[in-house]
C-alpha cells in the first residue's frame, strides 16, 4: 500500500472563526488506518469544532482536508459518509419519536424497500449484542423511552452498523459520558477490537485514564491549536494535564492579598448529588469561585441557591436577598423589547415604585447612576437594549444585579464572549462591591477569572470535589481535580 493511502483523513492548517472568536487556529491533524487517536483538551480548546470538520458538518474557513490521500474540495456530511467516516456526536442525535430500528434506518439510505424494518432491526440488534452483551434493548423500543445511558449505547452501536457504505473511521465524542463503568468498559474493548481489525477511531474523552489506556496516539489541543501530539506511551497523566493547562507562562494577576476576617455567613449549600460532607460556604465580602468542566453541576447549584432565597430548600441556607447574572444573556437575561433603563430596573421595582406605579424618574436616576458607574456606552439609556454591543449588554445585566438590594450575587459564567476591556472593568467592580460586604458566587469556565476569587470549589459530576484556597490556586490543580478519575 502506498504511504499516502495509509492516512484515513488529514487536515492541514484548518481554521475556523465564529465571529471574532477563533475556534481553530491552523490545525494539522491526521488519523492513520488501524489507529485510535485520543483527543484531549479543556472546554473550548476546539476539539468539537475539529471533529465537526472531519465529519463534514462544519466547513473550514481555511486549510485543506484530504481523505485517503485525495484532496476533498467540497467536503460535506454526505461525502464523509460515502468515504466511510462517521461521528457519534456529544449531543445525542437520535429521534426520540422513532423506534431504535427506525433510528438505524436514518443513517442507512440503503435500508429501504420491502422488509427494511426487519433488516434494520436485525442490523442494530446484532451490533448491540456484539458491543454490549446483555444490553436489554429491543429494536422496537421508542428512543425517547430509553434512559440516557441506553440511548448512548444505541447511538454508538448505530455508528458501527454496516450496510452499503464503507466504514473506516468512527469519531467518538465523549462516548462514555452517560455510561456506567461496566458498559464503558464493554465499549472501549470493542473499540480496541475494531482498531485491531484495521478500523480507525478518534476518541475524545475527559476521562484521561480512558484515553491513556485505549489510544495509540494522543493529540492535545489548547486555544484552537494542537499543542502536543505523540504516541500514547510517551504521555502520562501529569504530562497530559500539563500540556492541556499550559503550566508555562501563566502569571497570576497581582491582586493585593485582601485580608478578610470571616464575615457573617451568607450562603451554605450542599449540591443535591453530594455524598460526602463537603459543602459550599460563602461569607459576607467573599468572592467564591465555582470551577470544573462545563456542565458539572455548577449552574444547577447556583439556580438551587437562587430558588432557596425565595422558598426554603433542604441542604441550602441563604440569609440575604439574591440576584443572578445569567450566563446565556440572550435567552435568560435580556428583555429584548425593553429599553436599557427598564432592563436595569426590573430587579429593583419595589424601590422604584411611587404609589402603585413605577416612577419613570426614579428608574431614569437608577439607570443614569449605573451608566456612569459601570460605563455603559450609549447616548441614551432609553434606547432599546439591543442597541448595545454584547459586552455593554452584559454590563447592563451586572447593573441590574448590583443596583438591587441583593447582598448575594450569583454569576453563571457571565463573561462568555465579552471583550477583555469590559472584563477588566467588571472584575474591578466586583472586587469593589465585595469590599463593601457583598458576596459573589462566580461560576466561570475561564481559569484566569478564578484569580479574582478568595476560594474556589471544583465541581465534577454534580459534586464538589475540591476546595482550593487562594494561595493553593493553580490551573494545574483545578484541572487535576476536575479530571480526577475517582468516581
Amino acid at each position, binding site marked *: 500500500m502506498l504511504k499516502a493511502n495509509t492516512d484515513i483523513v488529514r487536515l492541514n492548517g484548518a481554521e475556523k472563526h465564529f465571529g471574532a472568536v477563533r475556534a481553530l487556529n491552523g490545525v494539522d491533524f491526521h488519523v492513520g488506518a488501524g489507529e485510535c487517536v485520543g483527543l484531549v483538551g479543556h472546554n473550548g480548546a476546539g476539539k468539537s469544532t475539529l471533529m465537526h470538520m472531519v465529519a463534514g458538518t462544519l466547513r473550514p474557513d481555511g486549510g485543506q482536508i484530504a481523505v485517503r490521500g485525495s484532496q476533498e474540495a467540497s467536503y460535506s456530511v454526505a461525502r464523509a459518509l460515502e468515504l466511510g467516516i462517521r461521528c457519534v456526536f456529544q449531543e445525542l442525535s437520535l429521534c426520540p419519536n422513532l423506534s431504535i430500528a427506525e433510528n438505524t434506518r436514518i443513517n442507512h439510505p440503503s435500508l429501504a424497500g420491502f422488509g427494511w424494518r426487519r433488516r434494520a432491526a436485525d442490523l442494530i440488534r446484532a451490533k448491540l449484542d456484539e458491543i454490549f452483551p446483555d444490553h436489554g434493548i429491543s429494536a422496537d423500543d421508542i428512543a425517547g423511552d430509553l434512559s440516557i445511558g441506553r440511548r448512548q449505547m444505541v447511538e454508538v452501536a448505530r455508528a458501527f452498523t454496516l450496510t452499503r457504505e464503507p466504514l473506516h473511521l468512527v469519531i467518538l465524542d465523549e462516548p462514555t459520558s452517560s455510561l456506567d463503568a461496566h*458498559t464503558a468498559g464493554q465499549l472501549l474493548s470493542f473499540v480496541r477490537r475494531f482498531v485491531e481489525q484495521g478500523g480507525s477511531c478518534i476518541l475524545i474523552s475527559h476521562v484521561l485514564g480512558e484515553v491513556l489506556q485505549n489510544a495509540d496516539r494522543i493529540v492535545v489541543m489548547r486555544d484552537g491549536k494542537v499543542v502536543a501530539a505523540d504516541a500514547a506511551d510517551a504521555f502520562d497523566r501529569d504530562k497530559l494535564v500539563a500540556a492541556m493547562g499550559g503550566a508555562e507562562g501563566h502569571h497570576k494577576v497581582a491582586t493585593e492579598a485582601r485580608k478578610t476576617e470571616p464575615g457573617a455567613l451568607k450562603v451554605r449549600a450542599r449540591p443535591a448529588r453530594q455524598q460526602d460532607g463537603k459543602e459550599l460556604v460563602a461569607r459576607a465580602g467573599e468572592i467564591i469561585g465555582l470551577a470544573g468542566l462545563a456542565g458539572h453541576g455548577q449552574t444547577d447549584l447556583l439556580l438551587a441557591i437562587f430558588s432557596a432565597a425565595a422558598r426554603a430548600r433542604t441542604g441550602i441556607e441563604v440569609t440575604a436577598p439574591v440576584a443572578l447574572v445569567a450566563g446565556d444573556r440572550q435567552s435568560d437575561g435580556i428583555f429584548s423589547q425593553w429599553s436599557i433603563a427598564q432592563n436595569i430596573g426590573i430587579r429593583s421595582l419595589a424601590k422604584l415604585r411611587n404609589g402603585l406605579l413605577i416612577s419613570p424618574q426614579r428608574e431614569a436616576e437608577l439607570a443614569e447612576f449605573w451608566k456612569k458607574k459601570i460605563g455603559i456606552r450609549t447616548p441614551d439609556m432609553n434606547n432599546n437594549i439591543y442597541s448595545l454591543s454584547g459586552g455593554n449588554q452584559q454590563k447592563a445585566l451586572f447593573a441590574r444585579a448590583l443596583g438591587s438590594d441583593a447582598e448575594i450575587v450569583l454569576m453563571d459564567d457571565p463573561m462568555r464572549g465579552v471583550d477583555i476591556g469590559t472584563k477588566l472593568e467588571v472584575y474591578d467592580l466586583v472586587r469593589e462591591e465585595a469590599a463593601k460586604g457583598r458576596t459573589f458566587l462566580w461560576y466561570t469556565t475561564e481559569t484566569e477569572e478564578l484569580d479574582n476569587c478568595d476560594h474556589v470549589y471544583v465541581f465534577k459530576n454534580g459534586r464538589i470535589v475540591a476546595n482550593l484556597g487562594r494561595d493553593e490556586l493553580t490551573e494545574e490543580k483545578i484541572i487535576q481535580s476536575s479530571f480526577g478519575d475517582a468516581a
Partner: protein
Amino acid sequence: MTAIAPGTLPKSSQRGSAARARLLRGLLPALSLALVLMAIAWLNPRAISYFGFNLMLNLAIPIALATIAQMFVIAGNELDLSIGTFVGFVGCVTATWLRDAPLLGIFVLLGSIGVYALLGALIHLRNLPSIVVTLGMSFVWQGLAILILPKPGGKAPDWLLSIMSFKPPYIPFPILAALLIAAVVHFGLMRTSYGVILRGSGGNAAALRRAGWSLLKTKIVLFALTGLFGVLSGMALIGITTSADANIGNGYTLLSIAGVILGGGEFVGGRVSPIGAVLGALTLALAASPLLTFMHIPPDWQVAANGAILIIVLAARVLISRRER
C-alpha cells in the same frame, strides 16, 4: 461501579410501564370514539344502524381527510391555519371548473398542491413561522374562492356525486372510507422507509441533517401531502353537499387541528398517528351534531359541548402521561 446488575431490572420494568402508558395513550382515541358511540346508542338505539351511520357520519370523510392533511404539517412541527379556507377554495373549483372545464379544474387543483409545496420550501428556506405564512395564505384562498364563486352555487361533477353516494353492502360508506384512509396513510407514513425520515424531521431535525438528509425536501413533501389531502377533502365535501360556497370549509381549520390532537398527536416532536387522527375526526364528527341533538342541546351550545369533549380527552391523556413519569 461495576455493579450494573442491580440497576438493570428496575430500569427495564420502568421501560415496561412507559410502553404500557404509551399503549394506553394510543388506545385513547379509540376509547373516546367508543364512549361517544355508546352515549349515542343509549340516547337513541335506532341511530346505531346502517342508515343511522350514513346519516351521522355524513361529513366524516371530508373532516377525516382535512385532519390527515393537518397531521402531515404537524408531523414536521408546523401548523396550517389555512386548511379550512383551502378546502373551501377547492370546493369552489370543484363545483365550477372541474365540472365545466375539467382540464382547467385539474390543472388548478394540481397547481394548488404545487403552491403548498412552495410554501413548505419558503418556510424552510427563510425560516419563517408557518403560523404566520399559513394565516396569510388563508386570506388568499378565501379571496380566490370568492372570486371563483361570489354567491353560493355551482354543482359537483356527476362522477364525484356517484362516488360519494356509493352504498356498499353491510358497512356504511363513511366507515369504509375512514378505514381505507387510515390504512393507506398509516402504511405510507408509519411503515415505509421514507415515512420514517418524514417523522424524524419533526423529532430531531439536526440528527437528520447530520445523517445527510435534505430537510428542504422533507418539508416540501410534507406540505405537498397536506395540499393533496386538502384537495381530496374539498372534493369529498362537494361530493356530499352537491354545491359549493366560498365559506364552506372555514370551520375545518380548528376542527382538523383538534382531530390530530384528539387522535394522540402532539404539536411538536413528530409524534402523530394517522389511525388516531382518523378516529379523532370521526369522534368530532359524531360528537358535533347527532349526539348533541339527541341530548336536546341547542345548537348554540353545541360548539361548547364539542370543546368540552376535547378538554376531557386531553385531560385524560395528560393524566396518563404524568403516571408514565
